[in-house]
């Protein structure tokens, strides 16, 4: 339990990007990505401009590019989908490196890859330069319903507590000789998850009682 409660993606810094108002950053991210998604995928030079914009912001933020690049692995599953695209799409065939692939499919794969990668990089930049509490503040300023912001707040606050609880339960399981390797061990894992649900639910009840005892009342009353 002694581990830091810092956010996994956050990169500490004092750059202009770190200091920018969180609601401005959220609007900029969503607006930028909507424009990227709406751009026809054969406007090749425009995507170079988008990439340059993202890279300039990353540069300004002083977050090392390698720090973000390592976290790009999150997009691997859909890279596989994009790579399959030229082979499953229909349309006129073109020859690339001795393989017959669909021309429109190839273009679609390019579109998926470039838009998806820009999206992940831009989102990573937000996550790396904005503390979770500031993201919540930004959402609140953007008029996200108060209760949703509160639920998100509880989730963020207890994320490390609950995932750590799960980690300890799995360590306890392994230290007693059960190392799950195949579907035969699913019942043991499922019981762990069931116990985690009961513990999380009861923790929620205790948190609620603690809040009431400190004078909590929902704002709408």
């Amino acid at each position: 339990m002694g581990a830091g409660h810092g956010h996994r993606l956050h990169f500490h810094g004092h750059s202009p990007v770190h200091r920018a108002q969180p609601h401005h950053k959220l609007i900029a991210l969503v607006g930028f990505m909507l424009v990227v998604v709406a751009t026809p995928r054969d406007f090749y030079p425009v995507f170079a401009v988008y990439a340059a914009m993202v890279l300039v912001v990353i540069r300004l933020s002083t977050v090392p590019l390698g720090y973000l690049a390592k976290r790009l692995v999150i997009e691997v599953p859909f890279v596989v989908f994009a790579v399959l695209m030229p082979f499953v799409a229909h349309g006129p065939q073109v020859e690339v490196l001795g393989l017959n692939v669909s021309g429109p499919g190839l273009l679609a794969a390019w579109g998926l890859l470039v838009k998806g990668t820009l999206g992940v990089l831009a989102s990573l930049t937000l996550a790396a330069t904005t503390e979770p509490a500031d993201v919540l503040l930004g959402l609140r300023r953007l008029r996200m319903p108060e209760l949703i912001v509160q639920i998100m707040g509880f989730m963020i606050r207890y994320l490390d507590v609950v995932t750590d609880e799960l980690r300890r339960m799995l360590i306890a399981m392994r230290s007693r000789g059960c190392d799950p390797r195949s579907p035969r061990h699913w019942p043991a894992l499922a019981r762990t998850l069931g116990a985690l649900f009961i513990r999380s639910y009861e923790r929620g009840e205790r948190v609620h009682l603690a809040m009431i005892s400190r004078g909590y009342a929902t704002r709408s009353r």
Partner: protein
Amino acid sequence: MHVPDGFLDAPTSLATGAVAAAAMAVALRGARRELDDRTAPMAGLVATFVFAGQMMNFPVGAGTSGHLMGGALAVVLVGPYTAVLCISVVLIVQALLLADGGVTALGTNIMLMAVVAVGAAWLMFRLVQLVLPRKVSSVPVAAGVAAAASVPAAAAVFSVLYLIGGTAPIDASTLLAAMVSWHVVIGLGEAAITALVVASVVRARPDLVHGAQRVLAERPLLHLPQPGEVVR
């Protein structure tokens, strides 16, 4: 796996965003009715549980593993409104703080995983409950069937969205068949895990399982004679 940016075109993304916002508004109202001023801490902790549950790897064999989507599990454990709310919040946090799922695809992801998957699971759960005997032991079975239905349902709706606003020319029937058949297989894994988890919770704390409430309400109170009590 979450839908990234650029998978669906901008109009479709905006339309699914509107659907997601409306669904969250309804869920918020329903959850407040069920949980009252416990909504924030309870939904928050359940969302955290769903997030942690999705992190848990279930080994499939040959070094690969899968993880739970969690829609059916959440709906059986906490009920439809709270489940929609919790899974939406998980998806928002994943998109904004972990870059998992595109920000423009957030509405699509909420619609697929929080609305369609949870809705399909709840419908199927209630249907199966009508057929099976009204016993606590039927709840995990119904939960499993609900989970098996929820995954292909989300995949089917994704395919339909892709045909409307997709960005690659893929044959409609091929896509639908491939998506649904592959997700039927994934759904079987989801079903097994969901049934096992619900079974373990129902055994220890049946009162916490929303899907077991009707069954529990019908269960007659047993009078257990105390030591020394005269049983007439």
